[in-house]
């Protein structure tokens, strides 16, 4: 299943530290990785906040680290995400989305954490968010997430949905060749460095220096955008007969794949930073654009912002996604 593919991808990428707290529908990632002790360090932590901070500590100490959760836990992990951005710590955080807000509909899938994944922690930072749409792609994208984390020295978010996390497919992992990046951060004990959540220059806090903040943020942003440019992950199926471009991601894209014969389909895998150039090139070939997603238009707003033109939306709320419903609603547009 998708969750197991994430665990396999993480191991392939060289992850040797995992900490998490059980939550539906993400727990299978934990279950799978618990079997790999003691080759990897595994901690079933007391809560979601602890698990992301443990992963940060382990990453600083020299290991590739990951934590996994679902929406309610993702809310708690925002504190650690901000810290990892500030301290520039490579890390992978998996969010297998379910219907919220709050405890919501725990066993039903959703895509409601898109904006939380982008901007859930306070302050400014540039998010790197990936979202696969098949079991095989879960495996590949997990490895890409670890590579991007090393390239950018930052946390990378891997989004799944409960449907994809539990989706069963046969995949020949050995047939997939992947490139794995080595560690980029010297482990604790190799210097006299000071890692801090405060704005700091060479380990010395600069908490009242506006000019330095601007300089620091420009560097951080350039670093993230430079890394993102190496991960232009998407799929575009142009149907020359269609004047309508359908943008969908994750399980929603998978469900509408049979509509390829009728419409053009665009699937972003790199959700953030938004693939502006690729989306615009595809959009320019169409009269209308519609984003189909299991939330109330979260990514539609992002696409509209990137394209600077009107974008339609189909919201599939409440945990159910069906091809018939999407087909009907596309006809009604």
């Amino acid at each position: 299943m998708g969750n197991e593919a994430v665990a396999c991808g993480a191991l392939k990428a060289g992850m040797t530290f995992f900490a998490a707290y059980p939550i539906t529908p993400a727990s299978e990632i934990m279950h799978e990785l618990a079997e790999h002790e003691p080759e990897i360090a595994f901690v079933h932590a007391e809560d979601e906040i602890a698990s992301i901070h443990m992963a940060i500590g382990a990453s600083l100490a020299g290991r590739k680290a990951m934590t996994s959760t679902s929406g309610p836990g993702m809310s708690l992990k925002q504190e650690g995400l901000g810290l990892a951005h500030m301290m520039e710590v490579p890390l992978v955080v998996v969010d297998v989305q379910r219907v919220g807000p709050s405890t919501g509909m725990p066993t039903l899938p959703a895509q409601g954490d898109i904006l939380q994944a982008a901007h859930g922690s306070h302050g400014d930072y540039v998010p790197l968010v990936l979202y696969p749409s098949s079991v095989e792609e879960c495996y590949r994208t997990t490895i890409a997430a670890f590579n991007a984390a090393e390239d950018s020295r930052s946390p990378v978010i891997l989004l799944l949905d409960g449907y994809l996390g539990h989706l069963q497919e046969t995949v020949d992992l050995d047939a997939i060749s992947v490139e794995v990046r080595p560690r980029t951060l010297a482990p604790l004990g190799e210097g006299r460095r000071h890692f801090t959540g405060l704005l700091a220059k060479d380990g010395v806090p600069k908490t009242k220096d506006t000019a330095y903040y601007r300089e620091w943020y420009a560097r951080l942003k350039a670093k993230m955008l430079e890394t993102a440019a190496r991960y232009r992950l998407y799929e575009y199926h142009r149907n020359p007969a269609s004047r309508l471009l359908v943008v969908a991601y994750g399980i929603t894209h998978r469900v509408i794949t049979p509509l390829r014969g009728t419409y053009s389909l665009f699937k972003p895998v790199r959700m953030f930073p938004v693939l502006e150039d690729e989306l615009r090139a595809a959009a320019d070939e169409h009269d209308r654009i519609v984003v189909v997603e299991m939330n109330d238009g979260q990514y539609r707003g992002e696409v509209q912002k990137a394209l600077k033109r009107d974008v339609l939306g189909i919201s599939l709320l409440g945990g159910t996604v069906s091809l018939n419903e999407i087909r009907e609603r596309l006809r009604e547009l």
Partner: protein
Amino acid sequence: MNYKDYIKWERMPTNWCPGCAIGTVFKQTAFALADMDLAASDMTVVSGIGCSGRAAGYFNVDSVHVTHGRALPVAEGIKRANPKLKVIVFSGDGDLVGIGGNHLIHAARRDVDLAVICINNATYGMTGGQMAPTTPTGAKTLTSPHGSSYAPINIQGLITSNRRHWFARASAFHVAHLQRTIREAVEWPGFAFVEVMAFCVENFGRRLGFKSGHEMLVNLKEGFKPRSGPEGPLGPLELGVVKHDDQAS
């Protein structure tokens, strides 16, 4: 090694107020590290948020200053990732026992091999002097203007409720005892927690009627005594170590 090797002199002076107790505990920690001859490559210091949380950056080793209350889980991740590193957590009572309380319970239960030095000044000093879980009953603070109506938390009871445990109380006045205690905590193979009785002259002491750091130091001297009697739980004004290493029983 000399204690001076463990201090990042280019970061001096610290941000601690004149008369503050944290500097004393910081220096005694440096003495204890020198006493053990620990190499910088074999150790790290982790702090949370607050006045005590600034300590990590003043040690001349790789160090980490994290978010409020999360020093323990970061330290635990470091220890699990590299068990050869001596991991020292240096933070305050509000950070470790207040907002980080859940992590404290579980790190102690898991008996993670960490040395935790907790500066207990019974208040949130950096934010102006609010009521902490350690604030004595009746004490007036910014958030208990009529006097705290709660009993302070029993850290000793919390730590020693685990079958295998190591808890010590020391004070910022009794420096020889403090230094020995810190060394013992770092050398203990498991979760070691040192509650260092301290004070905050600026944001708590003056509300309690103290005029200077020195007066508060004398208060520690007269209030606390190292234990010389039999083993067992420490009385509220006793300094010493309470430990149990019987993993088999």
